[in-house]
């Protein structure tokens, strides 16, 4: 069965305080050099062969992501 990954991240202009909090925690692990973290969501879908790319983009754009605040990518594995 085909597997599909949809990744959703906040748009660049949307303040992401969760990503900022993660970035601020990294120095406490002794890790430097990370300038920015953006936190998003990762979806893994198992779909029938009949589910075409247009349908996958509909799934992503109408439910998994909110296009007002988020960008998304669809990738077949």
């Amino acid at each position, binding site marked *: 069965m085909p597997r599909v990954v949809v990744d959703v991240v*906040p748009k660049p*202009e*949307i*303040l992401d*305080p*969760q990503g900022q*909090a993660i970035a601020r925690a990294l120095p406490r692990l002794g890790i430097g050099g990370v300038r920015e973290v953006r936190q998003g969501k990762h979806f893994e879908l198992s779909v029938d062969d009949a589910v075409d790319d247009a349908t996958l983009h509909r799934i992503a754009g109408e*439910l*998994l992501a*909110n296009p*007002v*605040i988020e960008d998304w990518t669809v990738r077949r594995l």
Partner: protein
Amino acid sequence: MTSFSSGRIGVITFPGSLDDVDAARAVRYADGVPVALWHAEDDLRGVDAVVIPGGFSYGDYLRAGAIASHQPVLRAVIDAARGGMPVLGICNGFQILCEAGLLPGAMVRNSELRFLCKDQWLTVENTTTAWTTRYSGGEEILVPLKNIDGRYVADASTLAELEASGRVVFRYVGAAPNGAMNAVAGICSPDGRVVGLMPHPEHAIDPLTGPSDHGLAMFRSVLDVLARM
């Protein structure tokens, strides 16, 4: 001004709704008739207006309001709102209205990443909507605010259009506690029939149980409007 005391106002219950009981109580306090609506049914039971209450519908899974916005009852609400039926979305209800596309923009995590629970002063900036005719322009009201995803965001052109057309209905007094753009606490549709706000007017209808009775006028306003229809 006399209220339309037989005005029937639907209050939707989703799995995870918290404030449907208080919203129905507010309708009763305003001399309206609350009608319980169920998320899985597309029957609005002939109501004259609808309140989408606060809470955590579907556990805020995916995004606050995202799952609720696709339920059968919301399909019916969207159709009725496009025909001019007044709709009020409070907190999670506001998030649902945005996810459903009835109001522009979105609510995201509060900028300080904290759940806020406090009494909040708001300015009423538009007194021509179906839900605000009983207020005076610039009036300040005190109502509870309680959420973690309350920061209103919209793209620059949407925000400019809302401001230019007077569709910012409620604004936080002072700095927005959650980082909301332009300190927006509530907005309305172009026809002023659909209003959404993050703070909770239904918790401020009696000084015995809330910080004020300033929220009651919202429910009385819509009953006035229905009486004139």
